[in-house]
């Protein structure tokens, strides 16, 4: 009875401590709006110990903005998110959602009407462990 109790309680606590899964590895080739105009773009620079490469660009068509990751590749990790950030670290940012794949071409809609002139960086960030994988400085075309 005692041993069963301990096992059950341990299981209950552990079941609440979920580690987010790693990002899918299947390369993506999402369609990019051919009528959209590239407003800013930049190349990814990895942080120490990580491997991130490719380009990030903001495209605009009819007042709709999206962030495109192009020729993109990153080392894998749990709970990777794509941010538009005011700084090269995730202090003040817009969360565009979970990273869809560790490689390929991916499109992330930017909702609302943020002042994109203030958000100068695209970041790949592990949210659960607060670890920055890479950043791209977005500059005018």
């Amino acid at each position, binding site marked *: 009875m005692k041993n069963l109790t301990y096992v059950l309680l341990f299981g209950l606590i552990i079941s609440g401590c979920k*580690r987010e899964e790693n990002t899918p590895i299947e390369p993506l080739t999402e369609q990019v709006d051919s009528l959209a105009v590239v407003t800013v773009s930049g190349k990814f620079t990895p942080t120490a110990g990580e491997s991130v490469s490719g380009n990030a660009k903001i495209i605009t068509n009819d007042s709709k903005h999206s962030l495109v990751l192009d020729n993109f590749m990153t080392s894998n990790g749990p709970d990777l998110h794509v941010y538009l950030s005011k700084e090269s670290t995730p202090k003040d940012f817009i969360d565009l959602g979970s990273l869809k794949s560790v490689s390929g071409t991916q499109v992330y809609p930017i909702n609302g009407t943020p002042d994109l002139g203030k958000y100068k960086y695209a970041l790949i960030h592990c*949210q659960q462990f607060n670890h920055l994988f890479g950043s791209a400085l977005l500059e005018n075309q």
Partner: protein
Amino acid sequence: MKTIIIAVICFLAVAVSLQAQQTKNPEINQFVDLAGTIGKSQGTGALSYVYNWRIGKKRKIEAGLGARLTSVGGSKLTYTTAGPARLTRTFTTPFIIFFAGQQTENWDTLTVQRPFVNALNVTINLGYNFTPKLSAGFNIDLIGASFGRKSSSVFQSKGETSTDPVSKPTTFNLLLTGDHDQGSLNSEFFLKYKLNEKWGVRVIYQFLFTEYTAGSVRQTAPDGTVIDRFRNKANNFGVGVSYQF
């Protein structure tokens, strides 16, 4: 939810109908209890010691004090502005605050990525013995301290999002009712069935507050109040095992 209520009613009905011959209960009820509950994105374990006095002519009513260590683990839990209560609720009268509306327009959120809180508190315990085997009760944490894991958090305030690298469990726990509370406090409604002289089992409905204090981010309320405490409220179901002394 309906299934759980029906199951509890059936449990009560069967237990009462099987009651043994009525004997007078001992004056003191002393036991330790191990409980576990599960909720949305979190799980808890609690170890309690209870010392109750049985009162009344038939000694069916119990009241007393105890101590409890509650451990709460989770993932990406949302914590909202903990107080002051004048900013988070529509009125603040102690106890009656339970019925106050929520001023969600004054809430910011702190999503703690890997929360883990241990709260060690003094408890107050109440119970009623329907039969020698079946009882029901309520307990609540009164005062104590918390320790636990520091974690990064995502802070959302006035449409802006930022990272707090180091949020930590609020250290001091104090029951003042509703949004006046400080820290992490556990409470339970439960039904208990004694399997034999020593062992009993419980079904539990838990109401749990856990609280984190932000490291570097701050909420600034409309009246200028600066806030760094954020609270998660959870209603969880679980089970417990008791050992009688």
